[in-house]
């Protein structure tokens, strides 16, 4: 639902359905981080500082698999590299001195970015209103999850080790849609038909996210037997280079696309 006004609380109102989903999502982070051996306080501090779901889950997952510090850190940071270009796209609308801009930039997360996006332009108050609500929800959810984690028993008996890959799958699937369907601000599931369908080159170009995902899987699975946990994930980042392939010389567009991450941070 597009926001109607452009006040802080319009942003919060537009993000409210997302915030309702973010609370249990934060809870699942708290529970899984505890099951991965992160203790009580560090998951909460991570939600307060990193405030980016997929990276936090990735770090917890690799730590839980015994992957060690460097692998967990690098994988999480790579997942958050997108905030470089996302931050760039809103840089023009943030106000104030360097410190104020620094603080405001922390409220940028996939969902607040999506809510504030008006056809490629961004509304500052919508962005900050939505961001503040999502930040609070994510933090409260994490605290609740960490506390609930005390009540749960053996994570393997509960199948929680399978919850990680299921979550990553849920985050991945919306990103695999054909490229033509990703104009910002439009929910579009059916526009695969609109993507040009002439020949394998244009098919590969419009399904480049799928190609990157398949390559990522192949790299990771091949490396699991020969490297410590976590390293296969980091090596899989090389698959992102398919995105640099531009057979027709066209760019990826002026603003980064959030690609279906509207429901989660």
């Amino acid at each position: 639902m597009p926001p109607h006004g452009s006040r802080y609380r319009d942003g919060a109102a537009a993000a409210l359905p997302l915030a309702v989903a973010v609370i249990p999502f934060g809870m699942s982070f708290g529970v899984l981080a505890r099951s991965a051996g992160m203790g009580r306080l560090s998951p909460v501090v991570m939600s307060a500082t990193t405030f980016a779901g997929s990276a936090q889950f990735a770090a917890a997952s690799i730590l839980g698999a015994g992957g060690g510090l460097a692998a967990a850190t690098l994988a999480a940071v790579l997942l958050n590299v997108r905030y470089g270009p996302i931050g760039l796209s809103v840089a023009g609308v943030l106000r104030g001195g360097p410190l104020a801009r620094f603080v405001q930039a922390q409220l940028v997360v996939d969902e607040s970015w999506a809510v504030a996006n008006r056809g490629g332009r961004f509304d500052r108050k919508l962005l900050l209103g939505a961001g503040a609500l999502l930040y609070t929800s994510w933090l409260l959810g994490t605290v609740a999850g960490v506390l609930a984690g005390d009540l749960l028993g053996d994570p393997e008996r509960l199948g929680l080790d399978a919850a990680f890959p299921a979550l990553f799958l849920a985050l991945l699937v919306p990103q695999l849609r054909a490229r033509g369907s990703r104009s910002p601000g439009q929910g579009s599931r059916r526009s695969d038909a609109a993507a040009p369908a002439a020949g394998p080159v244009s098919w590969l170009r419009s399904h480049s996210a799928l190609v990157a995902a398949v390559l990522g899987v192949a790299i990771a699975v091949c490396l699991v037997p020969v490297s410590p946990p976590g390293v296969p994930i980091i090596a899989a980042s090389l698959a992102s280079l398919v995105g640099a392939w531009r057979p027709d010389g066209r760019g990826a567009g002026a603003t980064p696309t959030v690609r279906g991450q509207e429901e989660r941070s």
Partner: protein
Amino acid sequence: MTAAWAVVLVVGVATIALKASGPVLLGGRELPPRVQGALEHLAPALLAALVAAGVVASGRRLVLDARAVGLLAALVALRLRAPTLVVVAVAAVATALVRLA
């Protein structure tokens, strides 16, 4: 300091810096299209690898166990457009049930 705290610290500082880098340092400049294109493909590549490793890796061994059933159940839930939390819960329950059997 435990590994968990070190990860929390480094990832936190790096993410805060990444989020602030555009607004604080670079103003309104844009990245070259190829760089932008590669950055956009980082998430699908990494998430897919996390799915694969999370299901078939057991330390350095490749195994097919109850987790694979859980992931299949998650896939079905996703096809039915279930919310994320339901997808995750379905995977955990299916895995736990296979382990009980």
